[in-house]
């Protein structure tokens, strides 16, 4: 044996004894799920409890073998490979394999032309997706990608998923069945969801930013404002909707114009007002913290050189505070995308409508039709704004 070969053996021998701890947990969970939980559930209609089916039962032999082989490679990588790029590639390959296996199961189990049966992803599918997702996240973290790479990676993943969905790859799975039935409403509710989340964010930014500046300039005002906003933050969403119902209802009754504009006790108005109130604290608090962080010498120099107060604020203070303020915006946006869900309870619409309708009908697929896009939206918003904050902060380091 040559020296290089000997070294290779020794290196692999050494790494065999050192098992990646996170990998071990993920592989154990994934393997247990594959063995003991159904990969898909076959239901004869959308609400009856279904028949569990394992991966081997639903795929043709070559497909099951190929999928199992890929998952085995992912598992080996999770346990022993230290190169983060290899780990990430095999994690992504695993995710693709599991997704395609579910799609293939849907195709295989659906009788031709049937629109009644439901093929729902089972426990094994979800556990595998979570394990592989964590595996991929861990590998990405180890690679320490820059903000631009992270956003590009997100965009590519979303585009890939979009292409697969548009192509009809998952059309025979239960969630997509629900989508097919609700396609038109889905677009409407998704738009409404974004409108509520971004609208209340915009309103909060419009009011919160000046309020934060005011708190910074007038320190005596600060405790009163922040305490009030803190108290608002502790009111549960449902309770706040209830509290707002009476005054907004009265307003609609008294002012016909308000009613015509859609400002009523129930519907979008109380939802927007509640989300706006919740959004104020992070924006105001972060504006104050960001302005406090700005170097006093820079502000003094700016005044000393003859900038007007407005120029000092807009050209020096706010620019330097921007990364911290944007961190507040990120908190608000992610929080809003999640909380808009509850707005559906008071007729505010949004993707939450599917969630609550699904719960009412014990149709879990309908719940997922609302929940999956909400989670995706929140995750994408967090990742994008984090990247933006990092870019801005790096410039100002």
């Amino acid at each position, binding site marked *: 044996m040559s020296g290089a070969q000997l070294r290779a053996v020794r290196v692999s021998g050494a790494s065999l004894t050192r098992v990646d701890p996170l990998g071990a947990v993920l592989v154990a969970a994934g393997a247990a799920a594959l063995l003991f939980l159904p990969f898909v559930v076959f239901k004869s209609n959308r609400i009856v409890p279904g028949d569990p089916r394992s991966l081997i039962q639903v795929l043709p032999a070559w497909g099951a073998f190929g999928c199992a082989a890929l998952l085995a490679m992912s598992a080996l990588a999770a346990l022993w490979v230290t190169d983060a790029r290899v780990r990430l590639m095999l994690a992504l390959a695993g995710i693709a394999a599991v997704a395609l296996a579910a799609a293939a199961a849907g195709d295989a189990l659906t009788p031709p032309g049937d629109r009644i049966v439901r093929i729902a992803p089972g426990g094994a599918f979800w556990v595998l997706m979570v394990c592989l997702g964590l595996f991929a996240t861990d590998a990405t973290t180890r690679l320490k990608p820059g903000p631009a790479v992270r956003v590009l990676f997100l965009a590519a993943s979303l585009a890939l998923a979009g292409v697969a969905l548009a192509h009809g790859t998952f059309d025979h799975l239960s969630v997509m069945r629900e989508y097919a039935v609700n396609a038109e409403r889905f677009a409407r509710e998704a738009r409404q969801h974004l409108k509520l989340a971004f609208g209340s964010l915009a309103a909060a930014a419009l009011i919160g930013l000046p309020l934060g500046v005011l708190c910074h300039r007038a320190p005596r005002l600060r405790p009163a404002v922040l305490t009030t906003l803190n108290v608002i933050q502790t009111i549960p969403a449902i309770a706040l909707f209830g509290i707002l119902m009476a005054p907004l209802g009265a307003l609609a009754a008294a002012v016909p114009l308000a009613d015509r504009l859609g400002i009523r006790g129930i519907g979008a108005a109380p939802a927007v007002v509640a989300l706006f109130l919740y959004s104020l604290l992070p924006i105001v608090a972060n504006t104050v913290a960001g302005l406090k962080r700005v170097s006093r*010498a820079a*502000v*003094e*120099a*700016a005044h*000393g*050189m*003859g900038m007007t107060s407005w120029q000092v604020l807009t050209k020096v203070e706010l620019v*330097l505070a921007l990364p911290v303020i944007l961190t507040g915006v990120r908190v608000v946006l992610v929080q809003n995308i999640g909380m808009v869900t509850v707005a559906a309870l008071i007729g505010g619409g949004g993707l939450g409508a599917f969630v609550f309708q699904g719960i009412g009908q014990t149709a879990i697929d309908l719940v997922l039709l609302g929940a999956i896009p909400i989670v995706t939206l929140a995750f994408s918003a967090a990742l994008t704004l984090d990247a933006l904050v990092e870019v801005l902060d790096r410039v100002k380091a």
Partner: protein
Amino acid sequence: MIAVENLSKRYGETTVVDGVSLTVERHSITAIVGTSGSGKSTLLRMINRLVEPTSGRVLIDGRDTRAEPAYLLRRRIGYVIQGHGLFPHRTVAENIATVPRLLGWNERRIGARVRELLEVFALDPATYAGALPHQLSGGQQQRVGVARALAAEPLVLLMDEPFGALDPIIRAKAQDDLLDIQRRFGTTVVLVTHDMDEAFRLGSKVAVMSGGRLLQCDRPAVLLTRPADPFVSRLTGLADRAMRLLSLVTAGEAALPGASDGPAVAPTTSLREVLSELVWSGADSARVIDVDGTVRGRLTVAAILARGRP
């Protein structure tokens, strides 16, 4: 010329500056010294109205500083603070261009002025124009701070402990640079410091403040020989006042006719340094010689010592 007339600043019951009158000659450097809390910074900041006076007034070239909005006044007055206060998000060139941009200069004029100042302050434009402040050393940051203050060719430059954050070697260099720049542009400089050596080195006049009042404002030698108040002599230092006095006179000024075989010294050397040289070499006298070799005379130990007394 800056004329400070009976200027006071009170915050409630506390009087920070108490009836100060002071004249700063054009093209001169005036150093304001005092212990912390003496009101020296407040006095400086009332000149560019970063602090508005409670009573009294300031005239610059005969014009009351309150005749225009404070921000317009400040654009005509350079301002340098301790810790430079550079804008961390702007490049060196953008920092220097701040006031010209506020004044609406065109880009060509701004670019030329920024390049000129970078060269004056020995910062290569190719390397430093695009750099961010945090990429510079402390001494370079301080120089950019002064360059920024001088960018719009102000007639008056106010400096609040400008070299306080620098180490001794870089500080000495920065002080030399300031003297060069002041000669070159003829700027009128008012500088606040708590460092007496710095005040004596830079100031053609030194103003001593205590408890908000101006005790004395005169040439450094007068402060040493005819202090108006016991506090002035305490602040200037009793123990080494003779040496301080010697450091204010150059060999060229004190040289007397006559020959000497002692060490050669340049006319710009201070008597303090000449004396030190004589002590070290054991000679009785030194030859004062120009750079071109012309003999300007000699300095005996006795002649030097005579200069160290009032």
